[in-house]
């Protein structure tokens, strides 16, 4: 006879000294864990609820300007600094960590319309309605850390006066050139008082300009004649142009897929385009209820933030038709400019109420250093939530956002209108000869023509 029974000596299964860690034994047998799916579902539900409880995206407001904030610029070589320009001509440098003004530049006579920072992060370029382009020396980081420098005013490096008012400025991602948008698109060099090159296509004013992050010589502009134009600095004339039904207020290139850009349009939508194929948008991002004023991509390229005239800031997936997140406060007025921070974890918005506001990019994210176990737990809950996101209860909680009444009503009105339009179209199609009214996708419908 051979016999053996289970016998566990306590010494083998418990710790030797009280300073030791408790010993852990694993057995992954599914029979020991019954109703796994139910347990996971409950965990997903709880995680979704906790996310809602911890969703406190607003970190703080930065006040100091005495007029509406019109433009902002990130410093590519300094993570916590951000420049903002206001309608009264004031330019400030903010420290995001302490949420205070670090440096104040004398600025312009009229409104500041565009701000940008050179590739090395040393020179700030501003332009405004006073028809000047000003170059400023960005204070070195040692000044940023000292506390008593809030009134540190600096003189511009250079002031270049030109013929027309400017609407926007953008610096090359890699190089010494910057472009301004105004009556025409001008290309400037740091050291020259006159533009090295200018482009014109049509008679209307260009209102925004952005350089391509991958190809330093390509830039996209939008103009008040509802067009989006792509320029190549190596060519004498503009490359391509599309005319849409409504004006595009701002453009942002996807930094990870530099052939794609997204246009913030006056008709409440954003349109993502492939710059090689402009005859139809790749994706239409709907949700705003008023004109979208500004747009900025996250450095990861997976999402972007938009600010709108309807007083909200929204975050979209780069390929998502609807927003992932909407931020609003009672005090925030029309949003004129938004920026994603360089580490993709914060969003900064500048609005009509003279404040800059700092938001978390993920509303319920835990700030600060996470312990490995905490991080693992967060990852697990995220995975479980992702797995059960289609179940009605989880979906309802994850999707729910509280909206101000005005926006809620406007959104439902827009929904009714678009539904009515769709019905009308359907009826019209039903009453006309088959094939005479072709179905056209929204991605194509908003484009009037493409010019080469």
């Amino acid at each position, binding site marked *: 006879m051979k016999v053996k029974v289970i016998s566990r000596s306590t010494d083998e299964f*418990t710790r030797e000294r009280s300073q030791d860690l408790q010993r852990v034994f694993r*057995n992954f047998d599914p029979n020991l864990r019954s109703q796994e799916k*139910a347990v996971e579902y409950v965990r997903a539900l709880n995680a979704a609820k906790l996310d809602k409880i911890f969703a406190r995206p607003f970190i703080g407001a930065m006040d100091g300007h005495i007029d509406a904030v019109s433009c902002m610029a990130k410093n590519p070589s300094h993570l916590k600094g951000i420049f903002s320009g206001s309608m009264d001509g004031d330019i400030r440098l903010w420290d995001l960590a302490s949420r205070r003004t670090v440096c104040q530049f004398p600025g312009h006579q009229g409104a500041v319309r565009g701000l940008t920072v050179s590739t090395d992060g040393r020179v700030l370029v501003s332009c405004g309605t006073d028809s000047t382009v000003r170059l400023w020396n960005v204070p070195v980081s040692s000044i940023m850390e000292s506390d008593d420098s809030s009134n540190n005013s600096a003189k511009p490096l250079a002031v270049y006066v030109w013929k027309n008012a400017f609407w926007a400025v953008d610096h090359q991602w890699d190089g010494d050139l910057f472009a301004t948008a105004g009556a025409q698109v001008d290309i400037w060099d740091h050291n020259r008082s006159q533009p090295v090159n200018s482009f014109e296509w049509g008679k209307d004013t260009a209102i925004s300009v952005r350089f391509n992050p991958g190809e330093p010589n390509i830039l996209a502009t939008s103009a008040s004649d509802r067009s989006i134009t792509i320029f190549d600095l190596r060519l004498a004339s503009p490359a391509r142009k599309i005319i849409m039904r409504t004006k595009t207020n701002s453009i942002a290139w996807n930094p990870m897929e530099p052939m794609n850009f997204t246009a913030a349009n006056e008709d409440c939508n954003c349109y993502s385009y492939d710059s090689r194929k402009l005859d139809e948008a790749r994706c239409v991002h709907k949700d705003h209820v008023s004109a979208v004023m500004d747009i900025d991509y996250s450095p990861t390229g997976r999402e972007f933030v938009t600010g709108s005239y309807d007083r909200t800031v929204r975050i979209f997936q780069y390929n998502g038709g609807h927003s992932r997140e909407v931020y609003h406060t009672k005090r925030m007025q029309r949003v004129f400019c938004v920026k994603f921070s360089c580490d993709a974890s914060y969003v900064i918005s500048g609005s009509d109420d003279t404040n800059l506001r700092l938001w978390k990019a993920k509303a319920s994210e835990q700030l600060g250093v996470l312990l490995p176990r905490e991080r693992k737990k967060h990852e697990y809950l995220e995975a479980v939530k992702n797995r059960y996101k289609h179940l009605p209860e989880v979906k309802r909680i994850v999707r729910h956002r509280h909206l101000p009444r005005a926006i809620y009503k406007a959104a439902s009105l827009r929904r009714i209108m678009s539904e009515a339009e769709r019905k009308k179209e359907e009826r019209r199609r039903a009453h006309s000869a088959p094939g005479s009214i072709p179905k056209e996708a929204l991605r194509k419908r908003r484009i009037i023509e493409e010019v080469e």
Partner: protein
Amino acid sequence: MGKKIANDIEIKPVPAIEKGISEEEDMNVMKYLRGEAANLEVLQDKKLKGQLALREDLYGKSAKAAAKAEKWLMPSEGGYLEAEGIERTWNIKQETIAREVDLLGSRNQYDIILPDLGPYTLDFTPSGRYMTVAGRKGHMAIVDMKNMNLIKEFQVRETVRDVVFLHNEMFFAAAQKKYTYIYDRNGTELHCLKEHGAALKLQFLNKHFLLASINKFGQLHYQDVTTGEMVGNFRTGLGRSNVLQVNPFNSVVAVGHSGGTISMWKPTSSAPLVKMLCHHGPVTALAFHSNGHLMATAGMDRKIKLWDLRKFEVLQTLPGHTKTMNFSQKGLLATATGSFVQILRDFSGSQNYSRYMSHSIAKGYQIQKLAFRPYEDVLGIGHSMGWSSILVPGSGEPNFDSWVANPFETSKQRKEREVHSLLDKLPPETIMLNPTKIGSVKPTIKKEKPAKQEIEAELEGAVEAAKKGSFKKKTKGRSKPSKVAKKKKEAVYKAKKPFLEQEAKGEGLSKKKRKNIEEENQLPRSLQRFARKRQAN
């Protein structure tokens, strides 16, 4: 995913010696895969297909990792009992086993004789560390099984019918003469659950924190022990019963009735999920295998039946009475009659149970309750003269998981686990016959088209019925043979009509009609109806 792994193994040139090992490992991988992968070939959406394929790949990897961990990292091996030569395992006495095993093991073999306080019932915590016993005449005790410490012993001076641990050893519930009570481990009465009435049997649903009871009048109660809310209160309608058992796989509660039926219940519906006739005569005992597919029932008709709960079919019928039954973690089935315990085992893995061990306690002791101690090779027996414990090699799971049930749990760990299990408390709606359904998609029901022959047969049947139909005898020449014949003809036509119509609809349309439809399609949709009207004229 399973398919893919199988392919991998086929492709690899495996030496003949290692083949056996890899096959064994493959089997283990199958265990951790938790069912077959979805068929991705039928999907149209390429993006979704890619995502799902990636996920399936991950599942496969994790199953492989788990199988590897099982092979190399498990600290203990299971117990076994093997006979040599002509001896048989069921003839081996407990004394012989006790002589062979080590000191720790032999300590688990004992008899506690308490002759005065009546038949004892007992219950273990899920980790097997603690045991609570209750004598019919009111004696209750909690014992720490690791060091055989009597934690608390007290007398309620009242009939105690059943006792059950709640979520941990801190609390237990006892079904007493009039009401059910909850005590803590110091013997303090915390609650008196009057709504349960005179409960005969209690069961605790661990994951849902529900206390289920069946009372004298055949009423099934579910009470949430965290909030005190009465979740369900159902009349079984099948009379008094003292056979109640929860299926650990899906938390469905089964009740055995005196009519030979077994009904299965969930707290959210007042009608039983399943009602099955299992025995001719009263059901005496009921037990569930932990994998949820196997149920054992015993009746007064001297039969023990093993059921496949996926098909609700009998797998095996064994002769014998039993008053109480229990499945061990490794699937051993213990049965008891009088003072004789028999343990059955599925040797082949094909759910064919046969004799494994047997044991008789002192003559005249009536066995009341059998319970395998989890994670140990021990069977606890509650009987009329106290309680005993015997060794059953190979019954317990040798490796515990610290995060599921830890026999060496410290008080701090216990407190943490309590909080975590409360956070993961399942709502009563998650109790269903197939718990893997949660999060899956309900398949669309396809309407089966009847075959041509079936239709014809039906038609013939209808015609025959119409022909055979008799008519009322009527006066004034209305029952003349000619009239009757005419009526019959009409009846046959009436019977045939729906079939003919169906056929006409199904069959191909005539050329003219087809042309008309084509013409219609040329018109805008709103005008199509006018085209149809013109055709009618």
